[in-house]
């Protein structure tokens, strides 16, 4: 204890004696530890922290899949089959997202909710905070009208009053009794605030309803069963269903993923990959930092050899000396770690703003990055580890001298630093450059990929667009003509609002974070398609003026017009991709297509126009999918409607006027999701943005740290070689010779680093392939330009040391004693 205290005091003194070294070391450490801590806070929030679902990592959810399409919801048919035939699960349940029109309170409001099977909540292992959950009795068909409400909803609508149990709620024109309040933050499925029992006997439903893919399945794995095993088993069951219900199930498969992955909106596993890539990135940064400080320490160790030799002569064992030096390193690491925590404290909120997840559920947990105990523990461990990592090698090197005499002689010989230590310097700096290059290449690829994604042609003009969603309540709009009347009237009314240029209605806004509708179609004159290759299109039902308002590009024919009414010829406007798939190499105009669905016949629709591809699907952002637009007046539906408004001024400034105009048509109509198109778009590429911004930042930091490292080594080397350089100049070396000597050393290090780095980067980028868009992992341009960038910056880092070398006075050769 006594000696530790002594070591500490001496360590503090040594660090204060060399403020330049201490500042660089602490700064580098703070940056690396801060970055590591911040990224870990994201990992913690997204992957590690417990969520209000019991034993989350044993819960899975399933998606219905068709080759090459968006993931679909699941059907009751599947649910029942999985429940009855699978041996993987302890329990399973199903839920259907459902938005309620909440009335009888203040302004009519739209609230997210769900119809859930009692087993759904049991499978998730959530229990109400107040009151009770649904019993089997509540859940039977014809059961009582009861509801559970969310914690936030309770606070907002019932002021957190405990007496809420038994009070009534008016949902979609029906009265429900509140049965319980769910725990804070719980909102599955889909950010639900209200849950009502499903009250459905699946077996009694007509087959068309049982086959509808609009539900969400969760299941809890039996002990010892892996997600993979469940996936394999359910895929087998899905194949049985294809045989049993060929009309409905042919071509459908299933994918089982862990609930956590589902919550991250990460069906393709990109978030997880991006996070791991970033972990790799910050880890690399930390390595560069350690190499840097180890180098500085090595250099100091050489300078301090006399001191250490003296201590040795006075009887200090090697252990004692190593401990002394390690204490200093630890001290440095701790100060750097404290700085890192300060930095992280500031970085974490910024990181949270860049949140990479697209999922809606459990946002209160998943969007909340913070420095909790686990993150703090991580920071402390990282700090200590760093201290050992950069402290041990120099300490062992500095104290490992056996022949002191040869060392004293060596210093007399104008050598460029003690031989073996120099090999370490060079090895470390080469490693730093190689790592920095790897980081830069990965960052460069991810940034490029992100930029390409951002520059993707959306097929419409997103500027100055305001969008909002309305579900037309069945109580008022049970008749289709009532809905048509509303959708006819509303855009007209909007045009009278000052600042509005035009308005239209669609059943899905492009790229919105809601359930998007698809349709299976049939092309006239083509044999009924192979059931395994059912053509599917995005299905958009729109009013006249919608396509103009959105700003699509008409390639051929016309858009939907006011004259496309129910009694007129059924028409359709298709996208280029649709036309390409349906009539390759032919003119689409005048051709006919029709929607198909088991148990229903739809009329043939004549193609009247072809528009440039519009990005409609969030999941398929990276490709162009077929889309068709059909007139609202010609296709009976009860989908929620979305109003889009093209404005002449800032769309945000019009929200009040727009609400007013809607309520002048229908005073009770609930309105939700009021936002600009750009706000909507900003949520599309969150994972990619997160990856690109972070990897880019890491790469730049890596470049900086490696340059500082190279600068340090070169500066140190020049200072060690001053005598040698002076001697050479005295012997007639010209500026070019000195330049060659010093720069040559730098260039050699740089080229080695770049060479090794290129190889490492080539390997590392192979892991990024699935994250990249229209960017080859082994893109030679990127590799070449990054290598060039690194070489130029490193040469710049050599500039001052070289200049110093060039100004060495040859008199030094005479003056040394």
């Amino acid at each position, binding site marked *: 204890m006594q000696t530790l205290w002594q070591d500490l005091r001496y360590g503090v003194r040594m660090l204060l004696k060399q403020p330049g070294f201490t500042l660089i070391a602490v700064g580098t450490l703070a940056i690396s530890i801060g970055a590591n801590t911040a990224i870990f806070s994201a990992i913690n929030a997204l992957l590690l922290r417990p969520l209000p679902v019991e034993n989350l990592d044993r819960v899975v959810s399933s998606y219905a899949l068709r080759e090459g399409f968006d993931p679909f919801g699941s059907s009751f048919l599947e649910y029942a089959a999985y429940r009855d035939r699978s041996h993987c699960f302890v329990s399973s349940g199903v839920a259907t997202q459902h938005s309620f029109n909440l009335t009888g309170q203040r302004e009519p409001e739209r609230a997210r909710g769900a119809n859930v099977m009692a087993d759904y909540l049991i499978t998730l292992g959530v229990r109400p905070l107040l009151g009770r959950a649904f019993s089997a009795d509540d859940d039977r068909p014809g059961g009582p009208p009861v509801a559970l409400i969310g914690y936030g909803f309770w606070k907002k609508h019932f002021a957190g009053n405990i007496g809420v149990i038994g009070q009534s709620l008016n949902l979609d024109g029906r009265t429900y009794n509140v049965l319980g309040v769910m725990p804070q933050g719980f909102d599955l499925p889909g950010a639900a605030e209200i849950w009502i029992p499903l009250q459905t006997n699946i077996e009694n439903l007509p087959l068309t309803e049982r086959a509808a893919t609009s539900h969400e399945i969760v299941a809890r794995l039996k002990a010892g069963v892996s997600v993979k095993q469940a996936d394999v088993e359910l895929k087998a069951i899905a194949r049985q269903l294809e045989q049993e219900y060929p009309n409905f199930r042919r071509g459908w498969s299933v994918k089982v993923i862990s609930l956590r992955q589902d919550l991250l909106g990460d069906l393709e596993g990109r978030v997880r990959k991006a996070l791991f890539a970033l972990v790799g990135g910050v880890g690399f940064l930390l390595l560069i930092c350690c190499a840097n400080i180890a180098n500085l320490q090595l250099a100091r160790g050489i300078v301090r050899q006399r001191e250490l030799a003296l201590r040795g002569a006075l009887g200090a064992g090697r252990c004692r000396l190593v401990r002394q030096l390690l204490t200093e390193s630890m001290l440095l690491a701790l100060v750097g770690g404290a700085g890192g925590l300060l930095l992280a404290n500031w970085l974490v909120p910024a990181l949270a703003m860049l949140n990479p997840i697209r999922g809606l559920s459990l946002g209160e947990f998943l969007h909340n990055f913070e420095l909790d105990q686990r993150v703090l523990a991580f920071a402390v461990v990282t700090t200590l580890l760093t201290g050992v990592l950069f402290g041990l090698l120099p300490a062992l090197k500095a104290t490992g001298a056996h022949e002191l005499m040869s060392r004293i002689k060596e210093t007399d010989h104008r*050598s460029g630093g003690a031989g073996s230590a120099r090999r370490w310097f060079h090895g470390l700096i080469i490693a730093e450059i190689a790592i920095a290059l790897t980081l830069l290449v990965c960052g460069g690829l991810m940034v490029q990929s992100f930029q390409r994604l951002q520059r993707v042609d959306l097929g419409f003009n997103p500027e100055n667009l305001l969008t909002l969603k309305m579900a037309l309540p069945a109580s008022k709009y049970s008749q289709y003509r009532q809905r048509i009347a509303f959708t006819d009237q509303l855009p007209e009314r909007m045009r009278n609002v000052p600042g509005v240029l035009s308005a239209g209605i669609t059943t899905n806004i492009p790229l919105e974070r809601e359930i998007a509708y698809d349709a299976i179609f049939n092309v006239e004159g083509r044999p009924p398609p192979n059931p395994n290759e059912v053509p599917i299109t995005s299905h958009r039902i729109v009013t006249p003026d919608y396509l103009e308002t959105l700003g699509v590009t008409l390639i051929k024919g016309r858009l939907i017009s006011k004259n496309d009414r129910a009694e007129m010829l059924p028409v359709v406007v298709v996208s280029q991709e649709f036309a390409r798939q349906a009539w390759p190499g032919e003119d689409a105009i005048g051709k006919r297509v029709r929607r198909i669905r088991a148990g229903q016949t739809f009329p043939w629709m004549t193609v009247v126009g072809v528009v440039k591809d519009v990005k409609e699907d969030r999941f398929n952002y990276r490709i162009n999918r077929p889309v068709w637009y059909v007139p609202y007046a010609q296709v009976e539906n009860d989908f929620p409607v979305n109003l889009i408004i093209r404005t002449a001024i800032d769309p945000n400034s019009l929200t009040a006027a727009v609400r007013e105009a809607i309520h002048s048509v229908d005073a009770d109509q609930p309105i939700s999701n009021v936002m600009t198109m750009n706000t909507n778009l900003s949520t599309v590429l969150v994972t990619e943005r997160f990856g690109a911004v972070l990897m880019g930042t890491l790469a730049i930091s890596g470049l900086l740290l490696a340059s500082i490292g190279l600068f340090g080594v070169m500066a140190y080397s020049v200072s060690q070689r001053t005598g040698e350089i002076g001697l050479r100049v005295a*012997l007639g070396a010209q*500026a070019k010779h000195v330049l060659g000597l010093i720069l040559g050393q730098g260039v050699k290090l740089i080229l080695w680093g770049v060479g090794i780095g290129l190889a490492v980067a080539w390997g590392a980028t192979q892991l990024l392939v699935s994250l990249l868009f229209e960017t080859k992992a082994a893109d030679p341009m990127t590799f070449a330009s990054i290598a060039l960038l690194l070489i130029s910056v490193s040469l710049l880092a050599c500039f001052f040391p070289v200049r110093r070398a060039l100004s060495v006075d*040859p008199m030094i050769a*005479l003056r040394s004693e």
Partner: protein
Amino acid sequence: MNSNELTETQPTNVVNGNGVHPLIRLAGVTKVFLTDEVETHALSGIHLDIREGEYISIAGPSGCGKTTLLSILGLLDTPSEGSYALKGHEVANLSFADRARVRNREIGFIFQSFNLIGDLSVFENVELPLTYRGMSAGDRKALVTEALERVGMAHRGKHLPSQLSGGQQQRVAVARALAGRPAILLADEPTGNLDSRNGEAVMQLLRELHQGGATICMVTHDERFAQHADRTVHLFDGQIVEDRMAA
């Protein structure tokens, strides 16, 4: 004008008594160091001619300006005033690069501390100034071998300096100084770091070189070694107080 050439400033009257240019002529050379507003007159009004083939020793108390004088002779430093002609050519206006070239070709240095480069072998150390001339490898090898043979170190060419004794190292340093066949050898206390036996050996070597025709200018404290020279210049407080030919 080709900047490689020394500038001829005094074409006519630099002729010495026996009808040739002195190898070196310093006229009115003064060196003033300015440090923190303190002026140090390291040299004042030095007139010194060195003829080819002379062996001069410069002596005097510590701080009298010996090293300063040598550094000016060796083109490591420039006089504050006065002129310096080498082989009849004024050196004052030479560019940095030309000075380096002249140092490399005309001057051989022997330093007090042997100033060998620890990472280079004995052979490479001797070769170093020749590489700065852009001489071919074959020519260099011949000159280096010859120089090493002169100092009796040819058999140690592959060794590193740290594997040699102090006296051997200084012999290598002498080999380096003479390998390029310079016009003059400058030595600043070449025996300062050696014991008397090794010092004696180096002195013996210099004397042999002198007998072989080399021009040598050596700074030494040691009266005994000063006697090896055939001319002794005594400095005091930056001035020449005695310039005596040996008997």
